[in-house]
């Protein structure tokens, strides 16, 4: 009798223990497969409609509000420092230690065009911010980016987040969405020292480097979007990166057939050459056609494409940079691969100047398969990371 009871006990304990372990296991699986985001839902896209819809989540709703409240009346870098400090003041001490980092090249280079879930970012995620904190973040970004331009500047940034929310709802899951974009301050904001604002997420990275009270660099800046098609959130329709694609197509189709032959690269490009992790590797020889060989109206098309990047910055920053790029325009080269219409996967274009470096790659979709989307990087041969 004793023998049976003891044996039964042993078996019960063993099975009980195993069941306990098993239940832990299945909870883990459930937790990781749950990918709901509050405030967002899926609206299926019909084949006939070109506009895709995502119900905007709380983050993009907060960022899209037009009212700006700020006590920072100063101008220029002083105002940015004031707004940066105002943002810091809304954070808890734990949040602050996550967001405020030291300025190192390694920290500055920690950006990517992959979703943050696949390539971890530094800083605090938008998903971790309250409405008040998001408003302070908005005040800061509005000051460094261009305002009141549809799908450019600050509006382009919001549209990019909206597109990523859309990827979240159509199967991308929790790796995607506005909550996975990160802000960090590298170095303490000041009107005298070296510091940077780094905002980086899946298809959008914008650094802003300051030193001795001046803006010293706004690159490498990554832009891109999936889907390339328009996405509606709330009452707004965004198509964050379509104007750039159209501008490049206008620039290339504007060339004569002989000019196109000169501009065409022999190789094929399925991605950016100088994407994340490829810092300072600018080709020693420029390829393609030199802008000085083009007529003035064709030169204007090249400058128009450059402006869609530079004019994303606030007016004073953009003016300085644009003057330099305009002065260097004649020694700038344009090159492409694939089609001039920038409509198919593998279409690629590059603007390579004494300072400016812009690449645009139209490439295969990841979440939306077999539908191309854009990746683009703006670099500056001497201004990346503020020259540091």
């Amino acid at each position, binding site marked *: 009798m004793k023998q049976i009871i003891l044996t039964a006990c042993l078996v019960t304990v*063993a099975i009980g223990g*195993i069941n306990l372990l098993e239940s832990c*296991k299945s909870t883990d699986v459930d937790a990781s497969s749950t990918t709901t985001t509050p405030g967002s839902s899926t609206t299926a896209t019909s084949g006939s409609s070109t506009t895709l819809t995502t119900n905007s989540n709380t983050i993009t709703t907060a960022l899209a509000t037009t009212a700006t409240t700020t006590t920072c009346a100063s101008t220029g870098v002083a105002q940015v420092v004031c707004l940066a400090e105002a943002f810091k003041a809304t954070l808890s001490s734990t949040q602050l230690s996550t967001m405020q980092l030291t300025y190192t090249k390694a920290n500055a280079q920690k950006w990517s065009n992959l979703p943050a879930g696949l390539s971890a970012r530094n800083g605090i995620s938008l998903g971790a911010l309250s409405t008040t904190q998001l408003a302070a973040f908005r005040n800061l970004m509005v000051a460094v980016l261009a305002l009141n331009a549809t799908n450019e500047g600050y509006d382009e940034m919001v549209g990019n987040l909206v597109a990523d929310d859309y990827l979240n709802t159509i199967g991308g899951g929790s790796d995607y969405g506005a909550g996975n974009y990160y802000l960090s301050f590298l170095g303490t904001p000041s009107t005298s020292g070296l510091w940077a604002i780094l905002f980086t997420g899946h298809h959008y990275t914008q650094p802003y480097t300051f030193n001795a009270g001046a803006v010293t660099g706004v690159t490498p800046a990554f832009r891109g979007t999936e889907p390339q098609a328009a996405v509606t959130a709330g009452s707004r329709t965004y198509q964050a990166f379509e104007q750039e694609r159209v501008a490049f197509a206008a620039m290339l189709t504007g060339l004569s057939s002989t000019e196109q032959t000169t501009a065409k690269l022999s190789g094929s490009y399925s991605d950016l050459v100088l*994407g994340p992790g490829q810092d300072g590797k600018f080709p020693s020889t420029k390829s393609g056609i030199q802008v000085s060989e083009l007529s003035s109206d064709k030169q204007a098309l090249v400058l128009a494409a450059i402006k869609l990047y530079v004019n994303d910055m606030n007016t004073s920053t953009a003016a300085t940079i644009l003057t330099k790029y305009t002065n260097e325009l004649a020694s700038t080269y344009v090159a492409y691969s694939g089609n001039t219409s920038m409509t198919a996967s593998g279409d690629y274009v590059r603007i390579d100047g004494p300072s400016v470096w812009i690449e645009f790659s139209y490439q*295969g979709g990841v979440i939306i398969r077999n539908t191309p989307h854009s990746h683009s990087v703006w670099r500056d041969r001497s201004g990346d990371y503020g020259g540091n």
Partner: protein
Amino acid sequence: MFLLFLLAGGSRMALAHPMPNSGVLLNVHADRIDAELQIPLVELQLAWGHAVNDSSAGLVARLGPQLRDYLRSHIRPQSPDGRFWTVSVGELVAHETQNPIVGVYRELTAQVQMIPPGVDSPGESTPGEADVRQFTFYYDAVLHQVRTHKILVSVRQDWERGQLAEAAPVQVGEISLDIVNDRVLPLPVNLASGSSWMGFVSMVRLGTQHIAEGTDHLLFLLVLLLPAPLLVTGQSGSRRRTGRFGWGNFGGSRYSLRRLLLIVTAFTVGHSLTLLLGSLGWVRLPGQPVEILIAVSILVSAMHAVRPLFPGRETWVAAGFGLIHGLAFAGTLANLNLDAGPMALSILGFNLGIEMMQLLVIALIIPWLMLLSRTPVYAYVRVGGAVLAGVAAMAWIVERVTGQPNGLTQGVELVVGYAPYALVGLAGLALYITWRLRRSKQPSAS
């Protein structure tokens, strides 16, 4: 499971590259290198022009010869003396694969044999014939045209360095565009030199590891040994009434050791035989039925430990089940695709490793079982152990028949991690009960 983890880890390493990369996995032999090329079709299409990705169905049947020509012209290993190797492209397969960044995509895998100059017939190597460990790897399939392409070159298996395909591939380098100078440079490959001794030792290690992680093999042996120290009751005199056998008292040290030794030796002889035959490819059984039979062998031994099923014939049963376990061991070796010389050393080393680990485990456990088997408590230990092993065996049978892991089998794997504590517990119990028994016997002298 471990392998899956490593594979996941392997794909994580490639995170810096958003587009699908090519991979070159080298399997280093004494006189040649067998390489597996993995080429994403979307990139190959961009480089080669043919619609290999847009129309990938029947690709190999349609474009096989052209694909082989294309690959041959872009794979050129060169020895330090300047001579190029002989390259032949074998099996081509187009299939779907995926990675966390680009999701699902189509890929071409090609089996390529690369033979350095001076080797007449691969597989029959004379030492020092040619050096496979040092060469300049000119490889630019896809990359010759697609300037953003990346090729990751890794060693998957290098027997003489003790590296086996069971572990994660070791990256040798990356072939990609030198952006600044707009050129593609070949990859210098300098593999550290190895030896037969290193290969042998790694096989011994693999053998010990195989047993240490092969819960089922160990469990079988332990359950078979559980009743070994005991006498069978109802054996003499009433042999006619079969089914009335039971496990009796401790049969004495000489009796137990003799039986233990016979059972272990029989098991060893059995699995050594099929390991040899299986590794040489003379006997080949599909993995699934072998794995199911191994689980059945545990169940049968567990039943035998509760009540004698085959008293006096344990040796034969151990040998018979040994034959089955050996087939499972052979599968591991056969997968390595080694040449004759390394294979012979591998079989020896692997078997030696298995023996060493088996003997270690037996040496750690048997003294306590023998000590306990002198006490009345042993009935509980024997039946309890047998029931637990029987439950695990049934769970394994279900898992191996259905191909789906279940809670019990996953639990067993977790519980196994606590085996050292169980051993300490067993030793403690054996010592305590023996001590109690001695004390209670002394005053009463009964």
